[in-house]
C-alpha cells in the first residue's frame, strides 16, 4: 500500500459522511476524473454553523480519507471556522500523507470551501447576508 498512516487507513475503510444531502444549502465540486480525483461536497447550514456535511469522492485512498476527515472536521463549525480548514490541518489530523498524495488534501479543503462559497453566494444573491 502507499505508506498511509493508520488514521488514513481507518478513514478510508470507514469513511464518515459519505453521500449527498437533499436540497443542500451549498455544493462544492473540485478536481476532475481525468486528473484522477474528483470530490463533491454538500453542506447544510443552520445559524451560521455547518449542521451537516456530506461528500462523494472518486479517487485514491488518500482522496477518500481526506474527504472523510474534512467532513468530520467541518461539521458543527461556524462558516468562518470551517473556511479556516486548510490542506495542512487536514493532513495533520490524518497523521500525515505521502508526499505525492498531498494534492489530495488540497482538494478536500477546496471542495468544502467551494460549498461554503456557493452557500454564501446564493444567500448574498437573495440579499440575506447572514454572514456579514
Amino acid at each position, binding site marked *: 500500500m502507499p505508506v498511509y498512516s493508520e488514521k488514513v487507513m481507518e478513514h478510508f475503510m470507514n469513511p464518515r459522511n459519505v453521500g449527498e444531502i437533499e436540497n443542500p444549502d451549498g455544493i462544492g465540486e473540485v478536481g476532475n476524473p481525468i486528473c484522477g480525483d474528483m470530490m463533491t461536497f454538500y453542506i447544510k447550514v443552520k445559524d451560521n454553523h455547518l449542521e451537516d456535511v456530506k461528500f462523494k469522492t472518486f479517487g*485514491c485512498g488518500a482522496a477518500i480519507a481526506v474527504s472523510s476527515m474534512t467532513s468530520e472536521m467541518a461539521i458543527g463549525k461556524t462558516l468562518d471556522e470551517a473556511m479556516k480548514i486548510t490542506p495542512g490541518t487536514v493532513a495533520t489530523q490524518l497523521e500525515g500523507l505521502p508526499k505525492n498524495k498531498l494534492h489530495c488534501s488540497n482538494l478536500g479543503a477546496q471542495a468544502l470551501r467551494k460549498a461554503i462559497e456557493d452557500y454564501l453566494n446564493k444567500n448574498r444573491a437573495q440579499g440575506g447576508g447572514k454572514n456579514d
Partner: protein
Amino acid sequence: MRKVYLDNAATTPLLPEVRESMLPFLDELSGNPSSLHDWGDSAREAVAEARARVARLIGAGAEEIIFTSCGTESNNLAVKGLALARQNKGRHLVASAIEHFSVLHSARTLEKMGFELSLVPVDSSGMVDPDDVRQSLRPDTVLVSIMHGSNEVGTVQPIKEIARITREHKVPLHTDAVATAGNIPVDVGELGMDALSLAGNQFYGPQGAAALWVRPGVRLIPQFDGGVQEGGRRSGTENVAAIVGLGKAAELASDNMTVRMGHLSRLRDRLLDELPRRIDHTVVTGDTTSRLPGNASFCIEFIEGESILMMLNSKGVAASSGSACTSRALKASHVLIAMGITHELAQGSIVFSLGVDNSPEDVGYVLEVLPPIVDRLRQMSPLYARFIKGSKGGKNARLQ
C-alpha cells in the same frame, strides 16, 4: 482470511525446487566464478549450468546469454548497447508505444544524445500492426524494439511477422520478453529476433537474476565497464545463487510449460468471462486471443484503481492497477492511453496476473469479493451518481 496473490506480473513466488537449488550457494561459501580455486570452480560450473538451462528455454546457444540483475538492466543494455554499436550507420530508433519504461526511457535517453525515436501505435486491443513497423523503418534505422507480451494488458505481439520485416530490412530487432519468456513458448530461432530480454522473477525464479540474449554476430556496447565477466559484456561479480535459481526456473519452465499454460488460461478465462458479467460497466483490456495465459485485466467504470486495490487487500487479495493514482508519477498507464482508453476509464484499471500456485478457489474468491467492493466505491463516486441521474429510469437504473 484467505490470502490470494494475483500480482504475478510484479514478481512471482519462488518455487520450492528453485529455492532448493539456490540454498547451497547461500548455505556454504559461494565462490566468485572468476577465482582460481575449488570454490571458484564450483561457482563457475554452477553459472555455466544455469546458462545452458536459460539458453535451452529460448532455443539459444549458452554462450549467447548475458546474465544481468533485472529486466530493466537487460532492456537498457539491449536498447543502448545495440543502438550505440550501430550509430555510425544511423540514429533512428523504432519502438512500440506500449513498451515498458525501461525500453521507452532508454530510447528517450538516446534521443538526448541525438537519436530520433518513432513510436509505432497499437490498436484498441493493444496490438502492433507489423505493417506499421514496416512503415516506420528508414534507411538510418538502427534498432527496432517491440515487446513480446504486455504485463499490463496481456497482449502478445506478432513478433515473428515483425522479425521477418526487420530481417528483410537488415535492422536488428530487440524484444522485451520479460513477461513472456518462461510463461509461453519463446524460441529465438523460430521467432527470429536479434536480442531478447528475460527476467527470472517473472517465471518463479528469484529476483536479482535476468538475462539478455544476443544473436551471435550482433554487436553490443557494454553498459557496465570493468572486469571481463560475461565475456566482457557485463562486468561485475555474478550473483551466483540468483543465477542458479534463474537456471532452475528456466529448466522447470521448459519442462512444464504446456501444463502451466493450460492451468493458467483456464483460470484467466473464468475471470475474463465472469467479472464483466458480475460487474456492469467493466471492460476487458487487451486482446482476448493473442494473450498471456495469466493476464486478466479490466477497466471498471466510475471508480479508481488504488481504492480497489486497497479494498481487495483488506480482503487478502493482491493485484495491480494502471491508474494514475497508483503510479508514483501520478500518470495513467501509457499502455492504456496508447490503446485509446480515456484517462477517466483508465483510472478504473485493475490487473489480475495469475500464477501456477493459484487455484480455482482463488478465482472464485475474487469473483465473490470484488463486486461488493465495486458497489461500495461506486456508492461513494460522484461520477457514478451523475451517471445514474443521467440515465434515470433507463436501463441503468438497475445498477443502483
